């Protein structure tokens, strides 16, 4: 495989990590009840509930809380953050960065880079990789990468079963301060129209089955195999494997193809409980694994975004992980904080009802 990525030591790692999942849960059976799906339709997805953002939440507020948690774990002064990347496909403003909002909220402004990234579900991961590059090169001391989404799905579309809300954030900093260092990465992208949303359209469209083989599986396999080739690592070298999780089924399937046992996938698999949080999907899996990982363990992380591409990371946990695990709420704390709602309330929270403008 021709390799555009240089083999070099990445002098950076994850100094702090943080998660956020909103409190409300919509059972997938409730969606099936409203839209007349047979239960096979959602049971096959292996997703029991999806997390729904409350009426006063959005990708900014969720991204902020994840970033705040990451800051708590890192213990750093937010003024030292030199770059903020916000990966989302549900930005509150089509034009106007969310990254500046969050940078201002956490106190990283004004001397910092800040920008929003878009690559379907993979923008947050690209932000993470860019952060590693900036820190490793010495251009900035710390960088903040956020993946946050209040994913849209057209009512009645199969996507509605899984499109959910959540956020994850990582403070990237010097290797010596890291709770987990990134050994190497490998990125694999092509032009693949599996899922898209045209400008001005409220909901994304997708190619149904086309989102599977030529998109999800092809790109994740490409990225992970590329990483293996580049590093000489193999599945047995990893303690955890975390893949993008659009549903509860695909990550287990891709793991099987790459010869990872189920046990290495389950700790980082959160979609069955909360649905697909898009830009936070695999990153929330990483946050949950870091919440429980032991020093010396190796993690494979492979986010994916439609359009399409995947990043594969090899991450090694350091001795610093344990002292940071309890410094902020864990993914499991947010999973435990749940309140079930029905479709009617979901529709209200998500502003699905057609309401005439007032005035």
């Amino acid at each position, binding site marked *: 495989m021709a390799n555009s990525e240089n083999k070099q030591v990445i002098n950076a790692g994850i100094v702090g990590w943080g998660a956020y999942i909103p*409190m409300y849960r919509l059972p997938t059976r409730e969606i099936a009840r409203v839209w007349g799906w047979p239960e096979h339709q959602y049971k096959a997805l292996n997703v029991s509930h999806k997390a729904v953002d*409350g*009426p*006063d*939440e*959005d990708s*900014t*507020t969720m991204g*902020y*809380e994840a970033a705040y948690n990451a800051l708590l774990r890192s213990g750093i002064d937010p003024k030292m953050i030199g770059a903020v990347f916000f990966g989302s496909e549900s930005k*509150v*403003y089509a034009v106007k960065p969310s990254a500046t*909002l969050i940078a*201002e*909220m*956490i*106190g990283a402004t004004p001397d910092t880079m800040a920008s929003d990234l878009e690559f379907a579900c993979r923008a947050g991961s690209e932000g993470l990789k860019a952060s590693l590059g900036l820190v490793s090169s010495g251009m900035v001391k710390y960088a903040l990468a956020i993946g946050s989404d209040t994913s849209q799905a057209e009512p009645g579309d199969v996507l509605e079963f899984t499109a959910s809300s959540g956020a994850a954030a990582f403070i990237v900093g010097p290797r010596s301060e890291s709770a987990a260092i990134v050994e190497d990465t490998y990125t694999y992208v092509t032009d693949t129209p599996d899922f898209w949303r045209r400008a001005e359209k409220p909901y994304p469209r997708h190619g149904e089955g086309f989102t599977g083989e030529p998109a999800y599986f092809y790109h994740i396999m490409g990225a992970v195999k590329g990483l293996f080739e580049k590093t000489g690592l193999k599945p047995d070298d990893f303690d955890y494997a975390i893949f993008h999780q659009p549903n509860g089924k695909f990550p287990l399937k891709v793991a099987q193809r790459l010869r990872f046992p189920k046990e290495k996938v389950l700790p980082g698999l959160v979609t069955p409980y909360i649905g697909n949080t898009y830009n936070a999907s695999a990153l929330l899996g990483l946050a949950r694994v870091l919440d429980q990982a032991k020093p010396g363990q190796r993690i494979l992380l492979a986010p994916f975004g439609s359009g399409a591409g995947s990043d594969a990371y090899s991450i090694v946990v350091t001795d610093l992980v344990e002292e940071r695990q*309890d410094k*902020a*709420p*864990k993914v499991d*704390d*947010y999973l*435990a*904080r749940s*309140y079930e709602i029905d479709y009617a309330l979901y529709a*209200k*929270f998500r*502003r699905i009802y057609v309401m005439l403008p*007032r*005035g």
Partner: protein
Amino acid sequence: MVLPVWWRKRIPRYRFVGALCKDCGRIHYPPRNACPYCGSRNLELVPLPRRGVLESYSIVYSVPGDNRLNAPLPIGLVRLENGVRVVAELTDVVPEKLEKGIEVEAVIRRIGEDGETGTILYGVKFRPALGRK
């Protein structure tokens, strides 16, 4: 256009910062031009503790403006860990579980939207505290 009205006060509302009076030692929120207690202008911005106790609450049904989405609207009187009190909206509240004395924590949520410009206003609200400190 209310855009600059909100914008100029964003820092204390985003970062939950109060003002410490260097003359009488008392802290208030949000920061004002003079200490409400002694009138001193010798003030210093200080971060506030994010946790507190819910001293009183109400569920507001007579919601002002276009706020049906958020109705009914829980509000509270919160006493922070350092004794400073704040009146604020509550969020992530299950009405039947709302009671005096519960521990709450500051979070950032949407406070509103400016109807004319569509800009979003963010600020501190309080929610029942997550289990962990």
